[in-house]
Each structure stands twice: as structure tokens, then as C-alpha cells.
């Protein structure tokens, strides 16, 4: 296995220059997720306006995979409807569970296809999913609140 499949340029770029890092003052919901097996932590602020993701900001400590994934995800979901975001979420989750057999739908996932190599490293999948699970939790809380 070539390590470059895991650490693609896109991932290392996002790790060094993260997007939407730094928590917004205003938010509809704040969630805090952690990975108890390794100590990675992530706080995510989510705001929605009329079913559209209007702001996703985050702060966290963790490895390049978890932090880059938070960065890529925040850029990807911004401006999407909850339905579109769900499609992206499902697509990313499927990619992570693919054990290296899929390369990801670039139309849907854009930069997030760079994480395809992660699915070959079982111990790292939860790193890549940390921010995504935080988003899912936050979106669900907003949905329950408005329901």
C-alpha cells in the first residue's frame, strides 16, 4: 500500500490551510464530538436558514485526516440544502465503508474524494468521519427543533 494514497495533496493542503476553522459567534447549534480511542476533539457550529446550510464553522485538535476532513466538509456543505447535504453525507459514508473498492463520485464529493484512500485503513475511518458525524448530529438537532 502506498502511503500517498492516504495522504493525498488535497488532504495535506487542507490540514495546513484549513477552511472555516474558528467558531462563529452566532450559531443555531453547537456540538462537541470526540474520538475516545485517540483523543481527537472537534467542536462544530451549524446555522441553517430556510433549510439551507448558511454557516459551518469548527475548531478542533486531531490528526491530518480528521482536521482536513472537517475543512473539506465545511466547504462542501456550505450553501447546500439539507437534502443535498444528506446526499453528500451518504456518499462520503459509503466511500469510507468501501474498503478501498471505490474512488468516490467527484460530482457529489468534489475534494472529498481525496479521502478514498482512508477506507483502506480501518483505524483511520473514524478520523475522517469525526466532523461528518458532528454535522449529522447538529443537523438532526436543528431538524428536531423545527419539527
Amino acid at each position, binding site marked *: *500500500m502506498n*502511503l500517498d494514497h*492516504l*495522504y493525498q495533496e488535497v488532504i*495535506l493542503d487542507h490540514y495546513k490551510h484549513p477552511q472555516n476553522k474558528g467558531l462563529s459567534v452566532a450559531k443555531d447549534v453547537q456540538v462537541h464530538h470526540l474520538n475516545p*480511542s*485517540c*483523543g*481527537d*476533539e472537534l467542536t462544530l457550529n451549524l446555522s441553517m436558514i430556510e433549510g439551507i446550510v448558511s454557516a459551518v464553522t469548527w475548531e478542533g*485538535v*486531531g*490528526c*491530518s*485526516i480528521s482536521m482536513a476532513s472537517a475543512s473539506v466538509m465545511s466547504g462542501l456543505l456550505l450553501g447546500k440544502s439539507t437534502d443535498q447535504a444528506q446526499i453528500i453525507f451518504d456518499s462520503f459514508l459509503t466511500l469510507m465503508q468501501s474498503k478501498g473498492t471505490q474512488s468516490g463520485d467527484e460530482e457529489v464529493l468534489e475534494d472529498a474524494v481525496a479521502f478514498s484512500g482512508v477506507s483502506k*485503513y480501518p483505524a*483511520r475511518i473514524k*478520523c475522517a468521519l469525526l466532523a461528518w458525524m458532528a454535522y449529522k448530529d447538529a443537523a438532526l438537532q436543528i431538524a428536531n427543533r423545527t419539527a
Partner: protein
Amino acid sequence: MTLNISAIKKDFPIFERSIRDGRKLIYLDSGATSQKPNVVIDAEGDFYRFRNAAVHRGAHQLAEEATDAYEGARAIVAHFLHADVDEIVFTKSATESLNLLCYAIGSAPLGNIFHLQAGDRIVVTEMEHHANLVPWQQLAKRTGCELVWFDVDSNGRLDLSNIDSLINDRTKIVALTHQSNVLGTINPLSEISKRTHEVGGLLVLDACQSVPHMAVDVTGLDIDFLAFSGHKALGPTGVGVLWGRSELLGQLPPFLFGGSMIETVTMTDSTWAPAPRKFEAGVPNMAQAVGLGAALQYLTKIGLDNIHEHEISLTGDLIAGLQDISHLKIFGPTDLHSRGGVVSFAVDGIHPHDLGQYLDSQGIAVRTGHHCAWPLNRKLGVAATTRASVYLYNEKSDIDALINGVIAAKNYFGVKA
């Protein structure tokens, strides 16, 4: 005596396999679990092949032989620790050993020497593995006891300056690790045991990181209980040991109830078998105990002093090599005095998981994370570290590979040289 590492390595079949596309396995994670020599794998397998029967019951030859093998393993453990054979309790893990102790103490009725009441004190340290912290923490919560702890100083040693106020006359239990699984620090027991016994407390030692690596004589340590796990000492998983002074085990209430551990049973009441049987309810992990016996005999044959000396020599090389790398911080003592073969470190700009992943691509197995010692990590001010730990099958070339691997990882991730 210098160890013949190439001969030792031949005893461990795992070193015949390769890692990550044909690379040599460089195993520096024995602090998490040790590899197993053929004698252990065979002892476990042969128990199932030739002697398998439920111990302590049955009138047939197999039951006799199984019981002999299981009780023989107990005798080996006792000899290894310089303990009496009835002082050795087999559990499924060191974690279970410590939980057994906590739950048994927590159930001791008024009048029993172990009885705890609100306001009593339990003392631990900031460097404990979760297995020797959380059970005591929860016991304290259940009983209304006060949990206090020794701090760790900037050198990774226990700060004993407040020992007399910390271990006060309300102190019933002092539980600490013999050697830190993160820092490698070997703790000074005599001062702590002296103070503990002065106030009438009991000293519990988590010896998971010491018993596999150095000669431990319970009669010389002035302690009351000791726990260690089989799998870190070349033995199988699924077997741990609790040692306790026989007069204490005699008064300690049982924890798990069921078959084997009773003396008499009526529909309304029961009495208990003497220790250690009182603490071994159900059919035990027999093959694993027998495997542990084989592991301890193997270690004895090579010699614990030789193993310790070998590991300290490698640790010196490891620390020196790491200290030569810029922007790298070692957590724990950097002198070899009272320290074992576990070294944790962090490299600026590379998260431990990424470093561990890079090293893995080179065939090098290390541990990354908080090492089940989250409070200590908080004290050190890091979310995670990378840990290398050595054992008798490691050699200087393993250390060199790690050092070169760390340097190459800095290059790979483009951080400051």
C-alpha cells in the same frame, strides 16, 4: 549477560511474517501487548489438544491432568513473584484483577477490615492507566470516599513533597503503578509503602509494565496487592493475575459468585471456598493460565535481570536518538535511573496518528494516542503522543529504524528539519 537476540527472535513466529508489502516487522509496541513465543502458543494449543477438561471437577483422567496443568501454572506464577501459591488469583486480565479488588472492597461489611465509609480516603497518582484509576474513582463515588492523587512533576516523576498530608490517617487505600505506561517512570515504592502502612492503609500495585520486564519480588516490596496481565508478559490474552497477602485474601469478600468458589450452598445462604478459589467463580481460562505459566518459565530461563539490562540499554539508545531530532519532545525521564523501556514523544507539526501511520508504512509498529491515561495527557498538555516500547526481542537496529523513520516522517509531512 548479553542476550542473543537472533536466537530469541526465532522463538517468536510472528517475526517470520512481513508487514506492508514485504517490509521487516519492527515491533515497538510491547507496552500494549507482547508477541508470543512458540512455547506459549504450543502450551495453550496442547492444553486443548491433549488435556482439555473442566478443572477442579470430574473424576476422570483428563480432569486430573487439566487441574494439574492449571494448578501447575499457579505454582509457576507464585514462584515467579516469590509468593505463596494460595496468594495467586487468576483473572481474565489485570483490569479484572483491579476491578475484582475494588468491587470486593466495596462490598466489605462493617467490621470487615476492608470496610470503607464516607470520608475515608483513596490515594492514586496522576500517571495511572485508566484501569488503575477509573475503578478506584468509581469505588470512591459509590462509598463516599475521597479520591486524592499524587501529582506528576515536569520530569515525569511523582511529586512526593506532600506525601504526609496526602496519605493521612483517613487513608485506606493507596493504588499506584509500578511503572508508568506513558512516561516509563518506575515509582519509588519504599517511601510510599512506609507511609501507607504507617497510617494503616493498603498498598495496591499495578505491575502490568514491570512484572514482564524486571524481577519483581512481592516479599521485598512491602506491598499488599499486585495486578499484572498475562498478555504483556509473553502470555496469552484472557489471563491476568491478582496477588494479595494471604491474610488479606482470607478476609476479602468474593466478587463474582457461582460455581467453584463456594464451600456449601443452600437455597438461602452460601459459604466460600478458601482463597484463591473464592475469587475464581466459573470454569476459568485454563488454557490461557497454562500458557502464562509457559511464558513465565521462558522469561525465567532467559533471566529477568538480563532482559531488564537489555531493555535499559536499548532505551538509552532510543532516548539519545530521539534527543538528536529537532522539534521533538520526550515526555518522561530522560535519565535511565528508575525508568523502563517505554518512551513517549511528540514531534512539532506532526500529529501522533500521522506519525504512527508513516512509521507503519515502514513496517514499524508503535502506539499512538492517549495510552489510556487521559488525565496524564492533560497534565502534559498534549492530546496524544507516540510511544515506543521495547522488549527482549528488540535490537539496536529496531531503534535505528525508528529514529530514521521519525526523521523521514518529518520530511514526508514537510515540517521543520
